[in-house]
Structures are given as structure tokens and as C-alpha cells.
């Protein structure tokens, strides 16, 4: 990428989606993976939980007008487990989510998020509960998710959030879109490859 985008903080209102172990099949049903681009993914997050078979909306935070325009998603434990489909974070991002704060995230999901410039930050279970309650009672609450300082705040309140140092560094330095960084070292890559015996078919 030619353009470097540093992601240090995300501000805006939040939407809570409660529950542990929310898998990526729930975040985006597999049938939408048949599309050849991510362009329309923003229409599909949690589709089968938001709409019934006839397409009629069901009660779901992402359908609730009070959370309209939220940019921070609040979740519980092991969010994004299961399938590696990047369509899941793409769907959330294209729906308008710019940061996810939760108790914990599944490994591949968190990795996919950072590569899209979508921060996933963790906080204690009690802080997540407090944030969710705050938002449910007062959905207009504006949050600042500060990736650099590892603090989430609203009004006078502050909680500490965490994310792997490598993710924080990638996001805040603008090197989350890693291709350029990796490609700059192709000579070293070739050197490493040349030392691996299978690369030459174990030739003597």
C-alpha cells in the first residue's frame, strides 16, 4: 500500500452483542462467501440472527435504531471463533464498526482484523459488563478507544484495554497492511528459503 494510515484511536457510539463463543458462521453465514468480492459484506453481518426466513427483521442490536451509527462493537469471550473467513471482520467493518472491545478474541479472527486496520482490544469481564450496561442504558454515550495509550474512555470514566504489542505497533505505525513491509525483504526471504532442504527437493 502506498498510503500509510496510522490507527491510534477510534471514537463514536457503541453497540453491544452479548454472548461468549460467537463464531464466524454466525457473524456471516457461509452462503455469502460465494460472492467474489467483499464489496457487499456490510449488508450481511449476523444476517440469520437479524432476519427471519422471510427477510423480516428480528430483534437484534444491529437492527436496533438506538445503536444506529455505532463504530465500537462490545463483545464477550472468544469472539470470532471457528472459520478463518475474513468475510466476518469485513462484514462488521463495512457495516461501520471501527474497533471491537471484548473479553477475548479467537486467534485467526484477531489476526484478520489487524490486517484490515480494525483494532480488537480486550478488557476485563467486569469492565465489559460495565461498558455494555452503560451503552444499553445510554446508547448515545460516546467512547474513545485509544489504541496507542491502551485506554477506553467515556465521560469521566476510563478503563484499561489491552492488545498484543505487535498489533498495537502495527496499527499505530500504519504497517498493519503488511504486504509492503514483507515484500521489502524479498531478498532475505529467498535466502531463508534457500536453506530449507525441501525447497530443492532434498537434492544432495
Amino acid at each position: 500500500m502506498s498510503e500509510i494510515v496510522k490507527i491510534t484511536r477510534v471514537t463514536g457510539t457503541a453497540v453491544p452483542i452479548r454472548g461468549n463463543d460467537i463464531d464466524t458462521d454466525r457473524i456471516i453465514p457461509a452462503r455469502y462467501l460465494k460472492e467474489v468480492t467483499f464489496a457487499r459484506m456490510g449488508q450481511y453481518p449476523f444476517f440469520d440472527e437479524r432476519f427471519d426466513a422471510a427477510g423480516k427483521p428480528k430483534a437484534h442490536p444491529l437492527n436496533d435504531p438506538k445503536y444506529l451509527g455505532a463504530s465500537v462493537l462490545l463483545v464477550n469471550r472468544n469472539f470470532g471463533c471457528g472459520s478463518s473467513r475474513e468475510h466476518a471482520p469485513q462484514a462488521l467493518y463495512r457495516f461501520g464498526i471501527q474497533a471491537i472491545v471484548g473479553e477475548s478474541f479467537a486467534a485467526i479472527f484477531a489476526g484478520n482484523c489487524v490486517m484490515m486496520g480494525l483494532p480488537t482490544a480486550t478488557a476485563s469481564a467486569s469492565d465489559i459488563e460495565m461498558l455494555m450496561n452503560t451503552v444499553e442504558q445510554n446508547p448515545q454515550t460516546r467512547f474513545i478507544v485509544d489504541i496507542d495509550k491502551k485506554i477506553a474512555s467515556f465521560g469521566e470514566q476510563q478503563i484499561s484495554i489491552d492488545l498484543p504489542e505487535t498489533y498495537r505497533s502495527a496499527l499505530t505505525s500504519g504497517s498493519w497492511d503488511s504486504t509492503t513491509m514483507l515484500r521489502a525483504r524479498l531478498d532475505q526471504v529467498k535466502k531463508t528459503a534457500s536453506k530449507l532442504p525441501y525447497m530443492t527437493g532434498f537434492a544432495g
Partner: protein
Amino acid sequence: MAERTLYDKIWKSHTVGILPTGQTQLFVGLHLIHEITTAPAFDMLREQGMDVAFPERTFATVDHIVPTDLRTRPFLDAEAEELTKALEKNVKEFGIEFFGLDSPNQGIVHVIGPQLGLTQPGMTLACGDSHTSTHGAFGTLAFGIGTSQVRDVLATQTLAMDKLQVRKINVNGALRTGVYAKDVILNIIRRLGVAGGKGFAYEYGGPVVENMNMEERMTMCNMSIEGGALAGYVNPDATTFAFLRGRPYVPSGEAFERAVAYWKSVASDPDARYDDVVELEGKDIEPTVTWGVNPGQAVGISEKLPRPEEYSDPDGARKAYEHMGWQPGGPILGTPIDVAFIGSCTNSRLTDLRAAAKIARGRKVKAGIRALVVPGSAEVKKLAEQEGLHDIFREAGFEWRDAGCSMCLAMNPDKLVGREICASSSNRNFIGRQGSPRGRTLLMSPAMVAAAALNGQVVDVREYP
């Protein structure tokens, strides 16, 4: 941190350098791709004017969306056709070897890699699919990646990665009759939790694992990700080398001997240090069935369904009961089924089909049950037919299909309808996974699926000698 494990050794030999972010730039020895998670990655390459850095290290197939009955082109599903065409165009444009629909090597990506001998010990392997952990059975450091990472591998043959910890899981003693690798891994996930492996690679060992054949080891490693572990592996040994000898992409003659010497050298040292060690007793494991909506929600066939309070997340367990429509305290034994599915990257290999056929031989699928056998690859299908397994299945009333992912994730026409309950040899019982938002999945071994199909309900396979 772990030391002198297979994981540490492969990590070290594949490290290109430390990136400014602190991540490790890791060389990817083998990259497998399929139709679902790659199209945007190729688009990104084109947009940025990049080529594929090591096109000879990427291999492609079609598995996720292919119909398993009527495979004539164009597919009836226009989206599936478009996605397949996109892959066909991309592999041609970027010079990648492709095992397409007409290739004898077509099949589920995690079945064909080992089958062709592409997957080898001491290698790093990445694929845009979470069940890439399967290849760890060979002592390969294999993990699933997302589409942006697929782009990185195509463009650089490397990934920006953080190192994992290593947890050794020893399965001691021996398994009882009727207990399979699937039951072992379901019990590991049940015990350690669906998020218990977060931040870990799992090293499976102990007598039970050492005595497993390669296909059983693949079943174990396949579901590592269902326990939250990005990767799982078994140290390569004589069983591994015997499996690999003579396969198309494995070197032969003296080169094979050199390969074996390298493969031996990557195994964890006897004095390797682990971040955590877990012990299980093989004799404690029963045929196991999931009752809920994640693979950790499982019980032994003779157990009663657990109370929600027995779980660390009682609310989650209550919601699972709500979706499944049954009550704590009842038996899993006797649960009625509508559909039986034998297939998926977890359990669609020859030994899986043999185990199921042994149960099905000379018996009949219960009237009203839809039963499918979907071999993992065109080659598995061919070998199974040479043994007459297709006849056994057909005579029993199973449909015998072409290779693909099929009803594991229902991206092709094989789907559950409405509230149907499926006894399935696949890997995920997530809500909606098998194609119906209201559908229900019971994960179990292929032999247990076959027995359930015959009875129209969950039974104990040990009663079918």
C-alpha cells in the same frame, strides 16, 4: 517459553527476520488455496501490480462450493460458477498449479495435500481455511489464515506472525473398541474448552497418538482449531515416513533418505520444554457426541446431558439447549436424527469410510433418513470403489457422492432444511453451519454416524461389532 520442540525448530528455520512491528516474518513452505477465500487476494495483487513471489509453492483446488452430485458446468448455482471461474482465471494468470474439477487430484484441500505428499514434516504450511491445522499430523507447522494473509503469502511467501506457546497433550494407555480419533479430540476440546488453546500450538503425543495411523492423526490435528489452538501437530515418526514414501510430490531414492533424516531432526527432542502439559487416559474415552452448538459441548454416549451450571458459561449452555430443543438430564442416546453425513476434512478419508462401511455392511438405513457419504477427494473415492465400499453404502441406502466439503458447511446444494437434526462426521455444530439457521448438528465419528443412520437415532456403535 517452550524450547527444542518441533514448533520451535520449524519457527526458527523459517524465520526471515523480525519486523519493525516486533512480529516475525515467517517463510511459508507450502501454500494451498481454494475457491472461497482467495478471489479478493488476487484482486489486491492486481490492484497493486504485484506478482506471485513463489508460484511453484502454491497449489489450488476447488472443494467448498462444488456440487457433489451433478457437477456439469456451468453449475446451477450462478455464484458458485462465478467463483470457480474466478479461481480458474487467477491460477492461469499467476501460474499456479491447479487441481480442478476434472483432475484426478481434486478434493478437499486438507485431504489432497497429504495424499499427494505436498504436505511434509518440517515445513510451514498456510491455507485460507481454519482446518489447515490438519496437516500438523505430519509434523508440519500448519495454520489457517484470512484473505489478506493469503495476499501476503502470494506476494511474498511469508506472513507477519507472533510466536505461540506449546502445550503437550499426552493420550496415555489405549483406546477401547469403538472409540476413534474423533472421540479423542472431542474429549480434549471438551476438557480444555473451545477457547482453551488460545495462544497455543497443541503437540499431541502419548501411546494412543503414537499408535494412530496418519488419517487418525489428521482427524486429531484437524480439530485443534475447534479447541482454539491455531495449530496442532504430531511428531513425525516411522508411520509418517511410511505414509509419505512413494507419493507424487515426495522425493524418491537417496533424496527420500535425506528427507527422512531432515524429518527426524525436526521432531521435538526428548528433553524439549513445554509451556503446559496435559494428560488424558485413553481408557476413559467413550464414543462421544456433541449435544450443543459448539464442539466443546459434548458427552460420552452413556452420559446424561449436563446441567448448564456444569459449564463455565451457563448462559451459553442454556442458549444451546434452547436452540437444540432438549433438556439437561436426558440421554443423548436415542436422540432422533433426520440426516446422516459422512464426510468433511475431519473424517472423509479411506479409513473413515472403511469404519463406516463396516457398520453399514448388510444393513439398511432407516426409512425416512437422508444419508450421504462424500469422499474427501477423487482419489479417496476411487480407492474406496476399488474396495467395493460404494456398493456397501449404496446397498444400505446411503448416497455415494463426488468429493467436496459438502454438508460440513453447506456452501453447495447439500443442506439441512428447517429443524432437521444431522448426525455428522464433520467438525462444527455451530448454529446454521449446515445450511439451515434452525438446523441442528450432532458431531460424532463416522462409525457412529453410520450406526445412527441405520437406526434413525443416536446409538452406541459398540453394539455393532
